[in-house]
C-alpha cells in the first residue's frame, strides 16, 4: 500500500518535472512543424506567399506522385536527396573512424593532458562556422596550402581540383561535425571498465575477441548516439555545401534554403523539408532498432 503511495507521488513529480520542457517543445517545435506541414500542402502564390487551397502536387515534383496542378516531376531533386544521403552517411563513417580510436587515446591520457585535448576538441565551438569553413577553402583551393605543398614536393605537376567537389564538402562536414561524434563516444569509452578488458584477456580471449565481445558492445551506445547527432545536421547542412561545394555540389539544405529565400516558394520548401524529415526519421528508426537487435543477438550468442 505504501509502495502505491510512493509510486503516485513519484509520478506526480515526473509529470511536474517534464511539464516545462513539454510546453517549450510544444510551442517552439511542434507549432512551427505543424505550420510547415500545412504549408507543404498549399499552392505557392505567384509573387511569394501562399494560396489557401489543397495542393498535393508539390510532393509530385520531388517523388513523382501525385502529378498535377501544372507541377512536373523532376529527377534532379531525388539526385540531390541521394547525394545528401551519401554525403551524410560518409560524414558519419569518416568521423566514426577518426573519433573511435581518438576517444580511447584521450581516455588513457592523464591529468591536465586529458583536459587540454578535450578542450582542444571543443575549440571549433568557440569560433564562427563560416570562418572555419572558409579556412578550408583557402587550404584546398588550387593555390592553397595542400596543392602548394604537393607541387613543391614534386608529387604532382598540376594543382589538384580539390574544391567545389563532393570531396571538399565531405571534408568540411567532417571537420564541422567531428566534435559531435567525439564527445558521446568519449563519454562512453571513459566509463568503460578496463577491468572487464583484463577479465576478457584473463579468460583467454585474444585482443580481437576482446574487442568484438566486450569493448564494441559496451561502447555501442556512444557510437549510436554520435552517429545520429552527426547524421542529422550533416543531412540538413547547407553552409558547407554552399562554400565548399559551389554550384556543383548541392545538398537538400541548399535546395530548401533557395526555395524559402530566393525562389520564395514556401510550399515547395516546406515539402522538401518534410520529405527530408521523413527520411531522417525512417533511417534513425531503422538504425536504432537494428543496433538494439544486434546487441540482443550478441547477448544471446555470448
Amino acid at each position, binding site marked *: 500500500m505504501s509502495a502505491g503511495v510512493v509510486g503516485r507521488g513519484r509520478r506526480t513529480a515526473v509529470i511536474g518535472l517534464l511539464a516545462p520542457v513539454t510546453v517549450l517543445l510544444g510551442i517552439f517545435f511542434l507549432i512551427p512543424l505543424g505550420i510547415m506541414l500545412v504549408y507543404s500542402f498549399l499552392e505557392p502564390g505567384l509573387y511569394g506567399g501562399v494560396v489557401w487551397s489543397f495542393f498535393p502536387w508539390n510532393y509530385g515534383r520531388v517523388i513523382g506522385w501525385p502529378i498535377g496542378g501544372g507541377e512536373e516531376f523532376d529527377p534532379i531533386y531525388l539526385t540531390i536527396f541521394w547525394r545528401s544521403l551519401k554525403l551524410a552517411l560518409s560524414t558519419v563513417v569518416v568521423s566514426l573512424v577518426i573519433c573511435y580510436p581518438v576517444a580511447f587515446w584521450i581516455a588513457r591520457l592523464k591529468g591536465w593532458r586529458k583536459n587540454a585535448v578535450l578542450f582542444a576538441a571543443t575549440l571549433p565551438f568557440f569560433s564562427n562556422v563560416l570562418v572555419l569553413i572558409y579556412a578550408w577553402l583557402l587550404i584546398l583551393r588550387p593555390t592553397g596550402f595542400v596543392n602548394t605543398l604537393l607541387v613543391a614536393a614534386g608529387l604532382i605537376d598540376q594543382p589538384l581540383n580539390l574544391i567545389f567537389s563532393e570531396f571538399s564538402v565531405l571534408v568540411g562536414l567532417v571537420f564541422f561535425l567531428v566534435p559531435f561524434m567525439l564527445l558521446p563516444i568519449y563519454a562512453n569509452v571513459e566509463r568503460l*571498465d578496463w*577491468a*572487464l578488458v*583484463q*577479465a*576478457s*584477456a*584473463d*579468460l*583467454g*580471449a*585474444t*585482443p580481437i*575477441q*576482446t574487442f568484438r*565481445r*566486450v569493448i564494441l*558492445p*559496451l561502447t555501442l551506445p556512444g557510437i549510436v548516439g554520435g552517429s545520429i547527432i552527426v547524421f542529422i545536421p550533416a543531412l540538413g547542412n547547407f553552409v558547407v555545401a554552399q562554400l565548399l561545394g559551389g554550384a556543383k555540389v548541392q545538398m537538400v539544405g541548399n535546395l530548401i534554403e533557395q526555395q524559402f529565400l530566393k525562389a520564395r516558394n514556401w510550399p515547395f520548401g516546406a515539402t522538401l523539408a518534410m520529405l527530408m524529415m521523413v527520411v531522417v526519421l525512417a533511417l534513425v528508426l531503422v538504425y536504432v532498432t537494428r543496433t538494439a537487435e544486434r*546487441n540482443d543477438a*550478441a*547477448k544471446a550468442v*555470448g
Partner: protein
Amino acid sequence: MTTEEVAADQGLVRVEAAVKRFRTPEGGWVTPLDRVSLSIRDNEFLTLLGPSGCGKTTLLKAIAGFEDLDDGEIYLDGQPLSGTPAYRRPFNTVFQSYALFPHLTVGDNVGYGLDVAGVAREERDSRVGEALRLVSLEGLDRRMPRQLSGGQQQRVALARALVNRPRVLLLDEPLSALDRKLRQAMQIELKSLQHTVGITFLFVTHDQEEALTMSDRIAVMDQGQFLQIGSPAEIYDAPTNRFVASFIGSSTVLTGSYRGGRVRTAGGLDIAVGTRAFPEGEAVDVVVRPEHLAIAAVAGRPTLPVTLDNVVFVGSDLHLHGRLADGTAISALHRHARGEGELTPGTTLQLSYDPAALHVMKGSKP
C-alpha cells in the same frame, strides 16, 4: 639457478627473483617486488598476505600476465612465461571488483572462456551448468549480473574462472567487498571448493583472519619482500620477526636481551621463557599473545603486572586492554563466565603465563 634446476624443483609455478619497480609521480621509485622467489605447489591453497601496497597484488598480476617483470622470471612446469600474453596463460583470475561483463547474462559470463576457446555448444552448456551448480547458482543463468546480490556476483566470478579448469586460480582479495557474515561463510566454502575441484589456489588478501582460515601455506609480504612462508600454525606460533608477529593476530612484542632462560626487557621487566636456544646476551624479541595471559593465578607460574585501561565485553570473551609497568600496551583474553566479579579499569592485576607458550625470536632492529 639454471632452467634445469628450476624444472627439477617440485613447484607447479615458480617465481624466481622477480623485480618490479614503478616511478612515482614525485619522481621517486617504489619497488613492489624486490627480488622475490616463491614456489607454488600443485593443488595447494597458498595465500599472499600483507598490508596494502606490500606488492602482493603486483605479484598476482605478474603471474596472470598483466604486469611485465623488470627482472627475474616466472616458470610454469619449468617453462618460462615471460613473453606469453595473459590470454595464453592457463591461469584464471577472480577479480576484486568481480569484473563481470554487464552486457552478458550469468550463463554467458560463465561460458565466456569456453566461447572464446571455441568449445562445442553441448560441452559448453554442460560445463557452464556444472560450474553454476558448484557455486550453488543453478537456475540463475538467464539473469543479468546487475540483478544479483554481491555474494551471488562473487560466485559467478568464481564459476567463470573455474569453468576453464585453470592450472592456478588467482584470487585478488575477492571477499573484501562482502559483509562480515557472508565473508566468513565464503571462506569456508572457498576452502572446501578448492578440495572439490583440486585446483591450485593463489589467494591475495590483507586480512590475516582470512589467511589463517583458508590457507595451506601463507606467504607474508611487506615492502616487496617475503618475510615468512609457512603453514598458518607455523606463522602464528613461531613468527620469525616482529612484523609477522604483530601482523598475524594481536600480540605485544617485547624487546630485550636473553640470559639463562629469562629475558630482561629494555623497560626493566624480567620475563621467564621456555626456550634455551639463544646464546647469553643475545638481543631477542618476545611475542606475548592475549591468550597467553590468564587472570587466575596458577601455582608455579610466573606473573606479569598489568594495569587495566579498559575491558571490552564481546560475549564469549572479555578483552582486557592495559599496560605493563614500563607503559607498553598489552592485551589479554579472558573466557567470560556468568556471575563473575567486575574488572575495574585502573586496577593492577597479576596475569599469569606459561613460559613455554611465549615465542622468542632473534631481535629485529626496532
